[in-house]
């Protein structure tokens, strides 16, 4: 009995010490976390004030050059605040609205320094300035509790997404920022990409039935399409309607998405056990070309290839028949199996909605004067590429090497008319 009491007492003490240690540890972690969050809030508050000031200062000058520093500050500060907000455990809808607004503000200030209309800048930034003043005040109120150490991060979070009258006032912050963002700033580059896909809803082609979609799949990929598991329509929230078809044949399982209008393939992908590679690069490229021909993608040219363990990924780009320029916004991706040359994947979602191209002059340019002497042009082509103003521009698409010994390769895209460098990408 005595021994039992001793063991129990001993276990109790050990457990007590352990749980005390754990509690201490958790408390320390909690303090460290709270400190970290407080720092982020404090940083964002301070920078929000600076941002508001920079926005106001940039409205003082008529000349773009005179406000260049302020515009640069707007871009830098909005980026900094974005980073601070991103590190806070705030409600997702709230933080994304913030990030959106700050991203748009920063990008707009930066892009308008390079190009853009002054009157438009003052109208947009004046509106942004008013919004920021209001937001800055609301942010001070919302964060004062956290910064004085009187409120835990959990409480703070609850209030941001709360339902009582006082709390709802806070949760409206996110919504108002969202409205500001959408009303004041133009679309960003990534949004136009997304927009391009969303525009698939405007395809004029006739609507096809589910059976017709399955038939199209069977005609195109007879090797895998014998056993369709399920075919269903996209959900109501989808920006463009499509059929989602899942299939299984032998060890192959995959899906194909086909637009309801016109029956265009959006993407196709299959997974299966892979065997030992037997097909060469040339054979696979030829097979990919044959597939494109069969699927009637006849206006594309091969651009690049990447080998990985089980497959090659090939990229084809639409070629404008008028001038032979590659249209980089209209690609088709194909994945080919190294073991038997089967088409494992097709992605044409961006190709379906072809870009509208305008004629554009090609000004003569002396590359020797354009580049430094150690830059050597290895290949010169024409391409259509989107510029900062989100327009498709005809451009010189150059492959250059900058260091004779190290052979560092860059792809450089230069507008044929304005000679503006649209993009420089290290390979």
């Amino acid at each position, binding site marked *: 009995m005595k021994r039992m009491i001793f063991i129990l007492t001993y276990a109790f003490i050990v457990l007590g010490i352990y749980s005390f240690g754990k509690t201490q540890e958790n408390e320390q972690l909690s303090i460290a976390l709270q400190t970290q969050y407080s720092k982020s809030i404090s940083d964002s508050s301070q920078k929000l004030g600076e941002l508001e000031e920079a926005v106001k200062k940039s409205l003082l000058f008529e000349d773009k050059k005179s406000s260049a520093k302020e515009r640069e500050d707007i871009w830098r500060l909005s980026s900094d605040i974005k980073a601070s907000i991103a590190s806070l455990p705030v409600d997702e809808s709230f933080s994304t609205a913030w990030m959106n607004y700050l991203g748009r503000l920063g990008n707009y200030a930066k892009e308008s320094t390079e190009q853009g209309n002054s009157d438009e800048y003052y109208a947009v930034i004046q509106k942004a300035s008013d919004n920021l003043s209001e937001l800055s005040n609301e942010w001070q109120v919302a964060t004062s509790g956290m910064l004085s150490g009187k409120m835990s991060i959990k409480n703070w979070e609850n209030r941001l997404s709360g339902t009582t009258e006082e709390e709802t006032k806070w949760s409206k912050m996110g919504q108002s920022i969202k409205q500001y963002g959408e009303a004041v700033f133009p679309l960003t580059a990534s949004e136009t990409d*997304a927009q391009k896909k969303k525009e698939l809803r405007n395809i004029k082609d006739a609507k096809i039935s589910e059976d017709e979609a399955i038939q199209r799949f069977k005609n195109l990929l007879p090797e895998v399409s014998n056993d369709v598991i399920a075919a269903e329509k996209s959900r109501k929230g989808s920006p463009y309607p499509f059929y989602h078809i899942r299939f299984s044949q032998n060890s192959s399982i995959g899906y194909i998405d086909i637009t309801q209008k016109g029956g265009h393939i959006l993407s196709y992908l299959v997974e299966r056990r892979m065997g030992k590679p037997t097909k060469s690069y040339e054979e696979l490229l030829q097979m990919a070309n044959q597939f494109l021909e069969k699927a009637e993608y006849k206006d594309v040219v091969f651009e690049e290839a990447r080998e990985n363990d089980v497959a090659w990924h090939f990229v084809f780009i639409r070629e404008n028949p008028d001038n032979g320029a590659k249209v980089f916004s209209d690609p088709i991706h194909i994945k080919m199996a190294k073991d038997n040359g089967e088409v494992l994947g097709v992605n044409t979602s961006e190709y379906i909605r072809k870009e509208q191209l305008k004629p554009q002059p090609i000004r003569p340019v002396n590359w020797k004067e354009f580049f430094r002497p150690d830059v050597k042009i290895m290949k010169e082509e024409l391409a259509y590429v989107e510029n900062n103003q989100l327009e498709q521009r005809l451009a010189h698409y150059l492959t250059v090497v900058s260091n004779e010994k190290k052979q560092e390769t860059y792809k450089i895209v230069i507008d044929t008319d304005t000679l503006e460098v649209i993009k420089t990408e290290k390979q």
Partner: protein
Amino acid sequence: MKRVVTRFLYILVASLMVLSFFVSHSEAFSGRDLAKGAKGDDVIELQARLQYIGFYHGEIDGNFGFGTYWALRNFQEKYGLPIDGIAGKGVKKKLTGVSDYDEKYVKGQIAKGNKFTYYGGQSLESQVQQGSKPQNQTQAPPKYTNQDITLLANAVYGESRGEPYEGQVAVAAVILNRVEHPDFPDTIGGVIFQPGAFTAVSDGQIWLTPNERAKEAVIDAINGWDPSENAIYYFNPITATSKWIWSRPQIKKIGLHIFCH
């Protein structure tokens, strides 16, 4: 007896010579042609041999990029071969004849993650620096690093390892869509580690070692596949606690996840 022994020795020596010929050939290139975009052991050999004779100055990593391409074209030009940047049978034969390849040294350095070169006429010891470079790098579009790919594979495995392959590619695509979207951080790390964004980060499952399937799914996503059809959110309707996520316009369901805008 002496004659028998002598004959036996002759046969033995001849056999060894034949064997050594085949051994040295088995270490040389495989039969396939090598073009830009290729990867693997024979690309390592191609880069090493080109470096040995001073044509290639880049990293010997088994990825046939532009550096290897220009070096190969220069080699073809110098030796009067057709200049196409493809290492076919003729190119490999010529290259094998004029260069050397110490497979053990080269692959040993790669396995150790060391920074090294393989120039002929210099001692090998002087060409090595200790390092910890990751092995088995993936061929990816230029804007993605191997670190991005590793992080994506961790996230995909932590978030969706029980899901169909399509669902895993879709999870990777959602992360990439967020990077491009103005509402989210503009780096892969920023998106993945945004507080509260992914359950796998909150519960630590992101640090599980991803399998080959998750890695393959990431490779497909970075090569442009997006089974989510441009989604920026997804959730499991059985476990989701946020009311807000139900308000997002839904696109499609893959496995247990609903993908939405």
